[in-house]
């Protein structure tokens, strides 16, 4: 996660404290402005993970997701979802699993 965010926000080892302040502020203000605190962000992340898992097999148990400030009026929601190169279970099996989940 931190590695992903680090690349996203251009963090480097030689970062000055002023650069750190700017990076942290830009990150937190994107959340403040759309009123999406970290706990809701986590909930959204889990739902996105569930949806994507319906169609592709996600590698690992987590995805990286971040709001990125941009120059204009539009901010970006960027998600990095690692998925398996080959499907280890047939699609039908995945869907069956989903049905089982719903029944349970």
């Amino acid at each position, binding site marked *: 996660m931190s590695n992903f965010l680090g690349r996203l926000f251009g963090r480097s080892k030689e970062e000055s*404290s*002023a650069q750190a*302040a*700017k990076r942290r502020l*830009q990150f937190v*203000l994107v959340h*403040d*402005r759309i009123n999406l605190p970290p706990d809701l962000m986590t909930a959204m992340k889990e739902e996105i993970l569930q949806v994507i898992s319906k169609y592709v097999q996600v590698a690992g148990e987590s995805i990286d997701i971040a709001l990125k400030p941009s120059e204009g009026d539009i901010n970006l929601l960027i998600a990095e979802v690692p998925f398996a190169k080959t499907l280890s279970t047939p699609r039908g099996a995945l869907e069956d699993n989903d049905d089982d989940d719903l029944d349970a």
Partner: protein
Amino acid sequence: MGGRVVTVTSGKGGVGKTTTTANLGLALARLDKRVVVIDADIGLRNLDIVMGLENRIVYDLVDVVEGRAKVKQAMIKHKQFPDLYLIPAAQTRDKSAVSPADMVQLCNDLRKEFDFILIDSPAGIERGFRNAMAPADDILIVTNPEVSAVRDADRVIGLIEAENKGPARLILNRVKMDLVRKGDMLSADDVTDILAVKLIGIVPDDEAVVSASNSGTPVTLQDNSRSGQAFRNIARGCAARTYLSCSLMRKAGC
């Protein structure tokens, strides 16, 4: 229409709102403008002591709003500038004693006789902030180059935009140039990258501000003070109603 209502606000407390209001008031008076400054921080009266007028208060803002005193009775004339007045805050009441509509009414009366009505807003984003915001034509946000103050300024900018009161303008106070050069303090450019508002003043951190408050003679009265010069520059933009951005001021050699 008459005079212009300029509200000085911040979100976070302690960033220098009262100092800024006092200095802008004095700097505008030095430009021969007729000015009244209103301390809207009810319960936490401060503007009077920063301006050296604390011993002359008879009536306050709440007395005016509740009809115990006429506006003219509550206005304290500055010792040095006869066209500069202060309406002090009540010390023993809370912010609910005044409503946004009261402030609009009061300012509309004052517009007839003054060029500028400066309102020193309380910190926070509640009743006192709304009181100070309601009559505003121009809104000046004071912040420091620190994460907490910048974050709170952003919150206030959002609220001002939501109320269609903008555009807010930014004053960056207490900038320590040596720290900025070392990369240990946000620069003016950093802050304008983060906050989407026009920066109309950069005020250097200056020990003279403290001694000036101590004696009740705001720093803008000292011709050789750098912070005083910064406040005078902001006041010129305010008086001309142009609010030159800092980058333009630099080009103009201010």
